[in-house]
Structures are given as structure tokens and as C-alpha cells.
């Protein structure tokens, strides 16, 4: 057996940062390896939004009219639907985060990490990177699906990229919701609950239909839903038909699509950090 020498503990901030990044990359790599070793959940995760697109775009879409949409029937609805589906794909990412965090806690892997001399920020940093990569892949698949069924961005590339940025910002905010909930709930029951509860949140938004078609108070909730903000803002940026909402939230979709994720981050980032620290109490 070779002699294992204890690595020297880094002293300078730069050396510590280098280790934290190396540790985070090891954690991210672990997730990438999961995708290769156990591709089914990853592929299902990628294809589920595509199924939803086809279901709403072709099964229900014909029956839904878009208030502000120029084109009539299915085609116009699909133009309206796609940005909503992008936002939905971001929301589905929450589940992946939740599964990863609760599984590690339940198996004792979180404790093993904490008993090791690795950078404690690396676990969440690595987790974030892996989940963001997953969501980028998910977004690419839905965008490709959208292009295949006739959706396109009608404004410039710059605005399209800004829209993608807003979508990823929402995903990043939800990541911290996932980390927090994953640290709070024990066991896989929480994951099942989240899988179910994501649907009412999804339907109570402008993702599928215009809030005007809902009863007044319900419409108001839907208009203020963070998902609605991102969906409406991306519709605007992609130049897709939206709906002419009269509320403040609807008229300021772009600002809301920035403000909401930042607000979520402002709440859940410190909560998650506190929760992680509380593991040692």
C-alpha cells in the first residue's frame, strides 16, 4: 500500500478559492456521470416538456384562442405557448434539484461531505452548476422542439439571448428554492409532493392561457405569478404574441421577470445557507 500523505492545507485565499472550485467541479462531474450511468431520468426530464408542448399545442391548443394573437387557431396558440413552455421547463428543474438534495441527505452523503476537508461552498456550487447545465440542455431541447413546430423568435438575436438569460435567471432562483426545500424535508415524500404541487402553480399562470379568461381574483394571482412574469417578458423579447393585460404586473413584465427571481434569491439564498449551517446544530 502506498503511503498517503495528507495534502497541505491551503493558506492563501487564492489557493483556497482554487480548491473550492476544484471541489465544486468534482461535484458537478458526479452529476454528469449520473446522466451517463443512469440516463433514463435525465432523458425523461428532457422529453417531458416536449410532450407537454405537443399535448397543449395540438390537443388543446385548437380550442384556446389568444386574446392578443394575430394568427388564429392552433398556429397562433403555439406561438403564444412556446415561451410559456420555456418558463415551465425552468420550473420543472426544481424537481431535479430537490431529488438530488434529499437523496444525498437521506443516504448520509451530505454528512460524509461535511466530515471531509472539502470546501463547504463546493457542494452547493457544484450542485448549481450541474443543475444549470441540465436546464440549459432542457431548454435547448424545447427550443429545438419549438422551431420544429413553427415557433421562432421574431426580434433580434440580442433580444432572444436576453430572453434566454431571463429564463436561466428564473431557473437559478428556483434552484435555491429546491436546495432549501431539499434541506428541510426528509425523504422522498417531499419530492412526490413537489411533483404534484408544481402543476397548480403552473396552471395558475399565463403559461397556457391568458389570465383575463379566468375569474377576476384568480386572474390577478396568475398575473402576479413569477412564471407569468418570465413567460410574458420572453414573449415580448422573442416577439411572440402575448396578451394585453391591463394590470401593472402585465405592463411591466420585463421588470417583473428580473425582480421576481431576484426577490426569490434574496429570500431563499440566505435561508439555504442558514439551513445548511444549522445542520451542525
Amino acid at each position, binding site marked *: *500500500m502506498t503511503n498517503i500523505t*495528507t495534502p497541505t492545507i491551503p493558506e492563501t485565499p487564492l489557493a483556497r478559492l482554487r480548491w473550492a472550485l476544484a471541489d465544486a467541479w468534482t461535484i458537478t462531474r458526479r452529476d454528469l456521470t449520473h446522466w451517463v450511468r443512469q440516463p433514463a431520468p435525465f432523458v425523461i426530464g428532457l422529453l417531458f416538456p416536449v410532450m407537454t408542448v405537443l399535448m397543449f399545442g395540438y390537443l388543446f391548443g385548437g380550442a384556446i384562442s389568444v386574446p392578443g394573437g394575430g394568427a388564429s387557431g392552433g398556429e397562433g396558440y403555439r406561438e403564444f405557448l412556446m415561451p410559456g413552455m420555456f418558463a415551465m421547463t425552468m420550473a420543472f428543474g426544481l424537481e431535479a434539484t430537490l431529488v438530488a438534495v434529499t437523496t444525498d441527505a437521506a*443516504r448520509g452523503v451530505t454528512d*460524509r461531505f461535511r466530515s*471531509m*476537508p*472539502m470546501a463547504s461552498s463546493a457542494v452547493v456550487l457544484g450542485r448549481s452548476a450541474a443543475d444549470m447545465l441540465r436546464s440549459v440542455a432542457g431548454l435547448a431541447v424545447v427550443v429545438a422542439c419549438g422551431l420544429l413546430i413553427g415557433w421562432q423568435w421574431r426580434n433580434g438575436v440580442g433580444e432572444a439571448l436576453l430572453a434566454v438569460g431571463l429564463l436561466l435567471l428564473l431557473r437559478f432562483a428556483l434552484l435555491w428554492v429546491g436546495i432549501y426545500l431539499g434541506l428541510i424535508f426528509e425523504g422522498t415524500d417531499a419530492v412526490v409532493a413537489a411533483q404534484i404541487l408544481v402543476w397548480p402553480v403552473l396552471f395558475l399562470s399565463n403559461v397556457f392561457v391568458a389570465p383575463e379568461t379566468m375569474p377576476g381574483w384568480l386572474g390577478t394571482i396568475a398575473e402576479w405569478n413569477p412564471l407569468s412574469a418570465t413567460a410574458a417578458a420572453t414573449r415580448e423579447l422573442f416577439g411572440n404574441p402575448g396578451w394585453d393585460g391591463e394590470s401593472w404586473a402585465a405592463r411591466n413584465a420585463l421588470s417583473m421577470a428580473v425582480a421576481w427571481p431576484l426577490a426569490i434569491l434574496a429570500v431563499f439564498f440566505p435561508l439555504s445557507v442558514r439551513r445548511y449551517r444549522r445542520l*451542525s446544530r
Partner: protein
Amino acid sequence: MGSTGFAVVAEGLRKRYGDVAALDGFDLRVAEGTVCGLLGPNGAGKTTAVRVLSTLLAPDGGHAEVDGFDVARQAERVRYSIGLAGQHAAVDEVLTGRQNLTMFGRLYHLGWPEARTRAEELLERFGLAEAADKQAKDYSGGMRRRLDLAASLILAPRVLFLDEPTTGLDPRGRNEVWEAVRSLVADGTTVLLTTQYLDEADQLADRICVIDTGRAIAEGTPEELKSRIGGDRIDVVVRAAEDLPSAATLVGRVAGARAETDPDARRVSVPVRDRVPALTGVVRALHEARIEAEDIALRRPTLDEVFLELTGHRTERAGGAGTEKRTEEDRTETEASA
């Protein structure tokens, strides 16, 4: 290593969860290169003690050093000196055995080639070389625990914490883990092992510390502890229930101790010091008194009996404040009478 010669030192550790004191002035000293068995029932504070010593949990009070470093102030340094294998096999089930060990090696800040070499060595050593490229979820319970153990040994730690390493394993898996632990001890690793099983502590530990309601209540070699509670026991099951009282008197006289009776099982139980002479004595006495026995057995005391002897209460905890209070009173009584 500290100049004290102790790899683990805990002094007056306290940890409170609401109304329950998980650790209530816990003291422990484990000499370098020895195996200490932390023995106690569920809820006695074993896991809390290990979590404090392995830097996972900050104590409310008291002081602890591992490998000469303070667990609170020098946590990072402690983490380079320890390995921890908890009650779960804390491995990534999707990754293969090799991928698991390489990943953990990287997280211990070994370079890639070093991490790979170390993974190979540990897979070989724990008999996992053939299963190295199988996913951990396809491992048996014993294999998974061995992989877990291997992961906690990547840096060849000076001190290894094993929290109930065989809980939930079948006898075969348990033997596999025991073998692995023995081989470590041969290398000079200090091991602190928690267990609910007296025989496990007996098999592996140089010294045993008995813990109850967050405090160390007895400490010594397995032999010392066993003689303190009266060593082995003889159980006699009589055929006729009416023979029970006379059998109890008889068996008690031979063993020189008070015999306990269990009317439902028609059983008499007595602690004995000289195993075989006592057994032959009991057989002869019963025969002479013409008491017919269904079964006579010489056996090790159970953890429950150790506890009853040391604390005056049994290991089962119904929970609730009343039970806790009675437990306290029981201990005071035992201490007073000792």
C-alpha cells in the same frame, strides 16, 4: 498526535435538543491505536457523541480533541485526520465503486493519479476489485458498507469513527465488516465504534464505554465489564411450573447469586463466575432434587442485562418525560447503593 497519548479526548460534552439532553457531560478517552466500543441502547447519545467528535455537530458545552486538534476551533484540520462511516452506507449509488472512491479521493484533495491509485488499492483491500465497475446500487448490503468503509479510509486516517457499522446487515455482512475493521486495527488506526450489540463490542473493542442518557456510566475492558455485571449466565427452563421456586433457590445456591425467575417462560436465570463448574453444579443439583429441566444453557449476558445491572433500568425507552424522570431516579438509586 497530542502528547497525551490519547487519539480522542472528550470532556464534559453537552448537547441539548429541546428538553432532551442528548449529551449530558459526556467524557471519553481513547488511547492511540486502540479500539473503543461505545455501547448503549437507542437514544443513549452514541450517535450524537460521534457527530460531535467528527465535526458534524457543534456541542453546546464541553471540549473535545481528536488527533490533538480541537473539534470546534480546528474542524478543518480534524477532518484531515478522521474517517467516518455512519449508519448509512454513504456512497453514491449511481456511481460505480471505483467512481465513488475516485470522487471522494478528489474531494480529499488528492491529485487525479493519486486518487485513482488509492481507489484501486482500497477496492483490492476490501474485496471489491471484481465489482469495481458495478454501480453501488447493485452491491449487497455488506459490499456497500465495505465501500463506505473504504471511502472513509482514503486518507489513511489516524482516527476512524464507525457509527453502528453493522446495523441492518445479515450475519454474513456483519462478519465481512468485522474482518475489515480488524485489519484496520492491525495497521494502528484508532477506532471509535458505536454499537447496540454487546457481542460486537466484545469482538472488536479493546475497551468499552457504556453510555446512557448522554453520559458515560461505565468504562473498562470487555472482561472487566463482564465480571462487574457477574459474567455469563445460566438459564434453566423447568418442565413443571410448580418446580420454579425450588429450582430458583437451588440454582441460586450453586451459583452464589440471586436467581431471577420468569414464570411465563418457566425459566430461572442466574449470573455465574466459573462457567463450566457452575454448569455441572447446576445439572447435578437439579438431578439430585429430581427437578426435571427442559433446557439448560450457559450464555453471555445480553446488553439489556448489562444495563439492568449498571443502571437499574432496562434498555427500552417508552419515551416521554415520565420515563426519563424514572430513569434518572433509577440511576441515583443504583449509585447510592453502589
